[in-house]
């Protein structure tokens, strides 16, 4: 599926997760954040960058790993992206919904 975000046409799946990280930009992130009623700060972007790096290195993401990363602890992760932090942050970072589970 295609969706227009911040004036650009980007590829997304049924749940609205981007399917091509190369199309991602900070402007798109800001737009996606608004859909979750979030206003992104530089701190948010540090976390997003960490998630993208992990994704590129094919490291599966879990809340525990993010919490142990040294970038952000679990408490702050929840404060930055309330409710389902991993799902919401992944969506804004332009990476697939984490398959944390089997």
């Amino acid at each position: 599926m295609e969706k227009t975000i911040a004036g650009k046409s980007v590829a997304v799946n049924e749940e609205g997760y981007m399917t091509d990280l190369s199309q991602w930009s900070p402007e798109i992130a800001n737009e996606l954040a608004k859909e979750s009623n979030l206003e992104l700060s530089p701190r948010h972007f540090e976390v997003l960058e960490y998630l993208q790096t992990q994704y590129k290195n094919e490291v599966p993401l879990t809340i525990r790993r993010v919490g142990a990363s040294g970038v952000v602890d679990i408490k702050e992760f929840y404060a930055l992206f309330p409710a389902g932090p991993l799902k919401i942050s992944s969506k804004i970072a332009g990476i697939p919904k984490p398959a944390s589970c089997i």
Partner: protein
Amino acid sequence: MKRLLILGAGTAGTMMANHLNKELDRHLWEIDIIDEREEHYYQPGYLFLPFDIYEPEDIIKPIKKFIPNSVNLINDKIDKIIPEENLVKMANGDQLHYDLLIIATGNDIAPEEIQGMKGSEWQKSVFDFYTFEGALALRNKLREWEGGNLVVHITEMPIKCPVAPLEFTFLSDSYFKDKKMREKVNITYVTPLSGAFTKPKATATLEHLLVEKNIHIESDFAIESVDNENKKIIDYGGREIPFDLLVTVPTNKGSEVIARSGMGDELNYVPTHKATLQSKKHQNIFVIGDATDVPASKAGSVAHFEAEILTENILRYIAGEPLKEEFDGHANCFVETGGGKALLIDFNYTHEPVEGTFPFPGIGPLRLLQESRMNHMSKLAFRWIYWNMLLKGTHIPFISTTMQEEGKHF
């Protein structure tokens, strides 16, 4: 003589001992298997023990009974593996050299990971059923419990047998109905996932069953602590859920041996090639069952499928041939839904559980993702199959190692 050493004589290790005893040239290879326990526990039975459906003697048998005579069983605690030197160090100081190593040390609960979980209410109003001791203590509690808020809770994924907490929930609904006290019990199912299960189609079916049984679900709950004094669980977002009886599945972690050996990830799982089951770091080490980090369910049925492929790969490795990249994550689980019924799910790395028939396409007799008595009878029969076929490495008729796509409604 060369030595093949198996660490852990649980489900996976025992199956490998039986397979390799038949397949390896015993003039060239000695096989040793180590476990600190003398008893083999049938873990799927932990689900039934709390409800007085099984007795302890149904689920405990001597390990010895399942290890072939020509395999050397060592009853001791493993301290650590030193992969650079092909050595295993025992807690009593002994050292064992190996040519080939199979790690099958499983996983265990780690309630100490969550603040307050193993606190003053542990085994008073906070229980687990993932250990024999926990399931037994919970049975005694349930026998005398008079009702209130029952909270069934998963701490974090991955856990072994990811459907077990849901099955526990369904069975408790039946149990309290049978005891004519269902109206005195509120049942809440609390999960860190966004829904009842990990795969979308099965989630829809299972959530429907929760509603039907009047079970409330709280999803996306990431526990931070257990408040023993006020009897509630609290998540990182500040959400609180009160309980009178908390049945939790604590964090699951691989064996401490793996941590002591510096061979695991942050949950002590060994990085393992997901199609061949060879360790990613050491060519002469293979990993099977709950000890691996492969993205398949941690279940006995999975270990069974893995064992068939791993046996072949060990033979190939010894012969210097390329390994077969065949393991597809195949899992096959019966899900108890209470009232004498169960559903059956069959899936792998790429295909989620769907409706259909099993094991014969279009015929069955078992129906996938639909409740039936036949599935429930099969779940109970699984105990017999486990003791008499699975552990001995007997191929189960009609059930293929890799998942079959025919007869399923994708």
